[in-house]
């Protein structure tokens, strides 16, 4: 049962990385879009794609947290108390990102739009970095069991953390560009298709290179994780991820954006699954195994029952949302963000 709960948690994390990660990536492209007039089109398109879904995408994080503390309470307390600096940073980023994005929707002048937009974009960059850094601290075995027992700084300022943080930003940007190219294609905006296609290819290349280069970092900084990734199920997942990532690049190149969404998703699944496999049987590497970390059977079974019941309601709801979105039923007209407030 502990394994089922872990699988659910990792599934939640994957969904968060994929969906919310892409929303953070949207912030990255918003940040780098250039001046108000030149970047207005890109920014308008990002806003249009994110508006109806970003809140639902964000909820996956809440999901991961509540499963974490219910099923693995001791690990949760150890992780959050040791990694409090990056996690607090991520929380501040989440507040600023969400609030600034929602408020920018009501901005009436170019000045207001710019101010909220800058906050939105910067926090979209900072948040995934901090989260990635925290995960890197866990994966490289820097979180001992106990109340703030680990080092508050080196637990997240270390080669693995920096690598995972950078990867989180790059992957988000990549996913976002792939999805946005697809959305632009559906909205019949050829300029935007070209713009996001170029970004997708560039970010995909960066993310791929970071991953390959990162293996060298892991080999020296987190050898146990590295060994797990080059053998058995860990290796299989890593290979799937790499192939799916490459396939996504090819599909984007060919303009097959709808299919590219799914291969991009597969690439992210490969990363989280590979990480989980590589770290077996530990939840906190070197400190706590999955079985040691697990709550009692009564809690785990209650959790699984609640999850099963909840998913029966959630899956059709999500299906409804995404089918409405992907069929353009909730589409806003896409107008360059600067023109929206000028008119």
């Amino acid at each position, binding site marked *: 049962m502990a394994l089922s709960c872990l699988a659910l948690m990792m599934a939640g994390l994957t969904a968060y990385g994929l969906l919310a990660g892409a929303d953070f990536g949207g912030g990255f492209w918003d940040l780098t879009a250039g001046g108000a007039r030149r970047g207005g089109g890109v920014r308008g398109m990002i*806003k*249009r794609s994110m*508006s*109806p879904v970003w*809140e*639902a995408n*964000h*909820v996956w994080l*809440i*999901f991961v*947290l*509540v*499963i974490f*503390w*219910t*099923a693995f*309470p*001791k690990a*949760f*307390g*150890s992780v*959050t*108390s040791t990694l*409090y600096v990056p*996690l*607090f940073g991520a*929380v*501040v980023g*989440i*507040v600023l*990102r*969400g*609030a600034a*994005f*929602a*408020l920018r*929707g009501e901005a*009436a002048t170019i000045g207001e739009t710019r101010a909220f937009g800058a906050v939105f974009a910067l926090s979209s960059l900072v948040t995934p970095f901090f989260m990635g850094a925290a995960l890197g601290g866990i994966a490289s075995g820097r979180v001992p069991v*106990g*109340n*703030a*027992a680990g080092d*508050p700084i080196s637990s997240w300022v270390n080669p693995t953390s920096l690598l995972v943080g950078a990867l989180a930003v790059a992957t988000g940007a990549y996913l976002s560009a792939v999805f946005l190219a697809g959305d632009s294609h559906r909205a019949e905006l050829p300029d935007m298709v070209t713009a996001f296609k170029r970004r997708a290819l560039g970010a995909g290349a960066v993310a791929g290179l970071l991953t390959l280069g990162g293996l060298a970092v892991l080999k020296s900084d987190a050898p146990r994780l590295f060994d797990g990734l080059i053998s058995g199920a860990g290796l299989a997942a890593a290979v799937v991820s790499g192939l799916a990532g490459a396939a996504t690049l090819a599909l984007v190149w060919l303009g097959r954006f709808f299919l590219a969404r799914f291969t991009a998703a597969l690439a992210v699944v490969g990363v989280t699954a590979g990480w989980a496999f590589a770290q077996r049987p530990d939840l906190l590497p070197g400190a706590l195994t999955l079985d040691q970390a697990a*709550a*009692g059977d*009564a*809690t785990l079974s*209650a*959790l699984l029952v609640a999850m099963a019941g*909840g998913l029966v*309601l*959630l899956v059709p*709801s*999500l299906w409804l*949302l995404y089918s409405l979105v992907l069929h353009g*039923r*909730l*589409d*806003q007209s896409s*107008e360059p963000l600067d023109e929206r407030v000028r008119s």
Partner: protein
Amino acid sequence: MIDLGLLAQVTGGLGDPGPQPDLLEARQMQALSLAVHIPLVCFGIAFPAMILFLEGLWLRTGDPVYKALAKRWSKVTLILFAVGVVTGTVLSFEFGLLWPNFTATFGEVFGLGFVLEGFSFFIEAIFIAIYVYGWDRLKPRLHFLCGIPVVITGVTGSLTVIAVNGWMNNPTGFDVVDGKVTNVRPWEALFNDFLAHEFVHMYIAGYLVTGFIVAGVYARAWLKGRRDRYHRIALVVPLTIAALAAPVQIVVGDWAARTVADRQPVKLAAFEGLADTKTGAEFTLGGVYVDGKLKYGIPVPKLLSLLADHDPNGEVAGLNSVPKKDQPPVNVVHFSFQLMVAIGTALAGLAVVYLFTWWRRRRLPRSKWFYRAVVAAGPLAVVALIAGWITTEVGRQPWVVYEVMRTPQAVTSADGLEVGYAFLVVLYAALGAAVVWLLRRLTRHPPQAGPEAPGDSG
């Protein structure tokens, strides 16, 4: 009961409490985060129902004013929901960032409530998006139906979170053996004896706060002479709902207080500043608790026994029925409790004036003072809400889990929380200012009753 509890205290799941340099900062960060989030929860509980009510009227009558108002309010909902999402996320993180030993020890007991809340919240987020972005894009009836899950999940979400708060006050669903939590029964913990009254009290508070704040916005417009049909409906709907809820809240509050008197007598003694156990206890208006006595208050003989026991000669336990180290800080609790009761009573009085005028004269009150009172009622309702939560949360001290785990045992050993606290204060001040500023702009320009331009709803 009290003695049993003391025997059953735990050592934390992360070991005995280590150094805890920043307990005070942790408590204040938690209090600030809750104070920001809870008013938003009220809107989550009550506002979607009000909006659907208007949309239902539109579907029945075809009157575009109802639709314009429903649309306008749903736009406000979207902003408030977004802010609620992020401030709620802060609270989730704080379970680990501030109280790691609480969560490490009891996460397996209370976590189930939050799993269910997670689903509620998820479905709420999905259908709010469909509802708000679906105006004029979905068929009217389907659009209305998509609002119903928002109403339901707004209620179930707060229900499950309150279940956890009820559990902290009335911890059940586990045993403590040798300081370790065992034999966990998560469903029993979820359905604890404090769930019912806490939930009903908060649910009605949601309608009071939302109703009076929204009514207050339009009462201001009314005072400025904007009295067309749009503004009249916008005033009457929330005001009527709040006016119906206000008197009911007094009855529910009595139920809650009696449950506390029965199960947490020391907390009730702190509400009242009652030092020693006595029969025929007096209710003291105001007063400051100094050196183990309540001074400078106005005593009303036997009223406390009457309220707590429904018997003027009933026995009420005093603070000194437990050692000093097990008593909550009295003045904060006593003042908050009295403030909540005073505001609640005043709001009920305002409600009676309104309902009476409507019932006898079939019209709105004419006095300018009535509308000024409605303008004030919104912020006052928020003050009462926060005061109520301070009453129950500070009244629970020194326990985080009543009579099982002390708050200092729960807190993080990490240092430097002052920095985080300062960040949070600045962040929330900026957030509050930005939200108020935008919402004011939204109410300043009433929309045309016709269909709005596409893209206007985002």
